[in-house]
């Protein structure tokens, strides 16, 4: 047992010390921070140039009805359109040409390209004015209508056994989707690291020295656990660094931070549940797949030979990943979705996608139990192939060969 700890320690420390690990750990939060900074910047950046809009109103319905805002001033020069265009003083000024029949196209011209928010402002005002006028014409009291009108914001609630819970569907979806993608990617990234580690030891020939000191199983488990801890460390660092950076950049009032805040707030009590599921499926999924990756690594002499074995291992996961958005999210309770989330090969991704839809507890229970049984099973198989494979050189391994190795005696 003590020796497994030593192996875990070595696998962990050599990887964490690597430049690639440090760079990865720093760049991801940096990108995250950059993203937040851009969002904050965009959200903060308002159009602060002052515009003068020369309204040429051929219909007469809009005369003096536009409301001036801080940056937009409406004037009514009573000129012809072409004169007004000629007389434009600044590049930021515009001419609004309203035809006699408002059903015709309204034309907004300026020397510079009009910003969207400006066009929005004008269009909104014109619609309001036109509706107001229409209502008045139809005998509706617009003032009382205004009083009745209220801002409706939908708050979705779920009926659960513990009563109604306020949830924000978007936030839970986003989190579980992000979790599923993260699991999918890291199973490959860290699984491949386990595989490369095994191949490295084999091609370095240090393997024979090590297995004369420890059992192959100890070496394999030490490597898997060590790499797994590297993965967890990376996640923890990413999350805490990202949170830290966005907090520092954003301060308390920035829109980005309030967005993050409301995101976390909206997750509410679900956050713990989701986090637990994420960690559970990440860990068991990692143990499940990296055992297989370790077996593949032991069977080959170089990374280029791994293809024939990698494909069938990665296929179920890839299949689930492709289905995730288009299928699992849309019909989370269909038989296929249920099966995918129960079979250990696809469960880590599939069940994460179903989590926001609160799958029945018994399904979650079966899925989790099978994950545990599954990784013990793959570890058992992998260990039997591994112990033979690591000492085999120059033999092109086929599936038949692997099966033979499996049945070798100690």
């Amino acid at each position: 047992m003590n020796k497994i700890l030593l192996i875990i320690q070595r696998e962990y420390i050599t990887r964490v010390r690597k430049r690639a690990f440090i760079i990865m750990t720093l760049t991801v939060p940096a990108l995250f921070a950059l993203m937040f900074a851009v969002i904050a910047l965009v959200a903060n950046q308002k159009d602060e140039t002052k515009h003068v809009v020369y309204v040429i109103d051929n219909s007469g319905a809009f005369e003096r009805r536009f409301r001036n805002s801080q940056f937009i001033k409406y004037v009514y020069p009573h000129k012809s359109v072409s004169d007004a265009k000629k007389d434009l003083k600044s590049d930021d000024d515009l001419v609004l040409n309203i035809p006699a029949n408002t059903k015709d196209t309204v034309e907004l011209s300026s020397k510079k390209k009009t910003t969207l928010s400006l066009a929005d402002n004008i269009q909104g005002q014109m619609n309001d004015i036109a509706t107001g006028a229409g209502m008045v014409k139809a005998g509706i009291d617009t003032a009382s209508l205004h009083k009745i009108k209220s801002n409706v914001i939908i708050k979705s609630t779920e009926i659960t056994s513990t009563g109604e819970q306020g949830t924000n569907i978007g936030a839970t979806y986003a989190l579980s989707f992000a979790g599923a993608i993260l699991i999918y990617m890291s199973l490959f990234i860290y699984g491949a690291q386990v595989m490369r580690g095994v191949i490295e030891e084999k091609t370095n020939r240090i393997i024979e020295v090590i297995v004369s000191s420890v059992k192959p199983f100890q070496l394999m488990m030490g490597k898997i656990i060590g790499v797994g801890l590297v993965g967890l460390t990376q996640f923890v660092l990413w999350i805490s660094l990202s949170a830290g950076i966005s907090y520092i950049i954003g301060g308390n009032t920035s829109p980005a931070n309030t967005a993050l805040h409301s995101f976390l707030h909206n997750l509410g009590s679900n956050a713990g549940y989701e986090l637990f599921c994420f960690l559970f499926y990440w860990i068991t999924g990692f143990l499940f797949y990296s055992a297989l990756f370790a077996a593949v690594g032991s069977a080959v002499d170089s990374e280029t030979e791994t293809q024939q074995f990698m494909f069938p291992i990665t296929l179920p996961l890839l299949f689930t990943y492709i289905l995730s958005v288009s299928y699992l999210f849309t019909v989370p309770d269909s038989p296929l979705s249920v099966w995918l989330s129960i079979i250990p090969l696809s469960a880590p991704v599939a069940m994460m996608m179903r989590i926001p839809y609160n799958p029945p507890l018994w399904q979650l229970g079966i899925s989790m139990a099978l994950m545990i049984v599954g990784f013990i099973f793959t570890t058992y198989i992998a260990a039997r192939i591994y112990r033979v494979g690591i000492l085999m050189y120059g033999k092109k391994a086929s599936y038949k060969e692997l099966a033979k190795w499996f049945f070798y005696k100690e």
Partner: protein
Amino acid sequence: MLSIRNIVKQYAGHTALNDVSLEVKSGQIFGLLGPNGAGKTSLIRIITQITGPDSGEIFFNGEKLNQSHIERMGYLPEERGLYKKMEIGEQMIYLARLKGLSRDEATKRLKVWFAKLGMETWWKMKIEELSKGMQQKAQFVATVLHEPDLIILDEPFSGFDPVNAEIIKNEILDLNKKGATILFSTHQMESVEELCDAIVLINKSKKILEGPLKDIKGAYRNDVYLVEYEGKQLSLNGAAPFEVIEEIAGEDNLHTIKVKLKGGSTSNDILQYLIPKTRVNMLKEVIPSMNEIFIEKVSKIA
């Protein structure tokens, strides 16, 4: 010390070891010989518990071989290898700790070894920065750092220049003097003659020869002598107690011949026959070298 009894190991399609038994006595330097593919590595892997035998038993100091013996063995495989990206000091300590040494003890001993072999400046270097010979030296240290009772060396001198090979040879002898038993597999027969107390020869998965080196060589004495004499070349007739097998060198005055005794006669008979006729410079028994014994034994079976 090590008693190997009726070991059988089969891989799919072929038998690597067929009923092999041998005894290694405590304090011996024991040579494990055999042509390529004879089953030496398979046997070593069974002793080091990397694999297990299909049948047969091994006893280590009278106890049935088990996990606890791993820490009392040191194994230098034929195919050397270390972690390329790891610093050498750290790596040596890691390997020693896998053999049950504490970090402090490993560090202490390693410093002694490094000083002894002139490796002090290597501590912080990565393996990939070292030459092949330097890596070999480091790996030798890693093999013996935990002061094992049984040291298993597979081709320990390959990859060393003559100077370093001599250094390593002396270290091996030194370790042996301090009480370590050494099991030593090689194709270099000169080093076998120089170092080994006893040998076993394995061919085609079977043991074909075993015993103390002296006895084996004694058994292979075939009454062949080398004679050098001065003077005119002798013409020999049937009365001589020997037959000339080979005329090796014949200068004007100096002649060397290889002779084989006829049944019942001794080396003294050679002298008695020759002395009246010529002046004998040298008479020496030709004992077959391990190399010759090896080739003879192996090719007889093949």
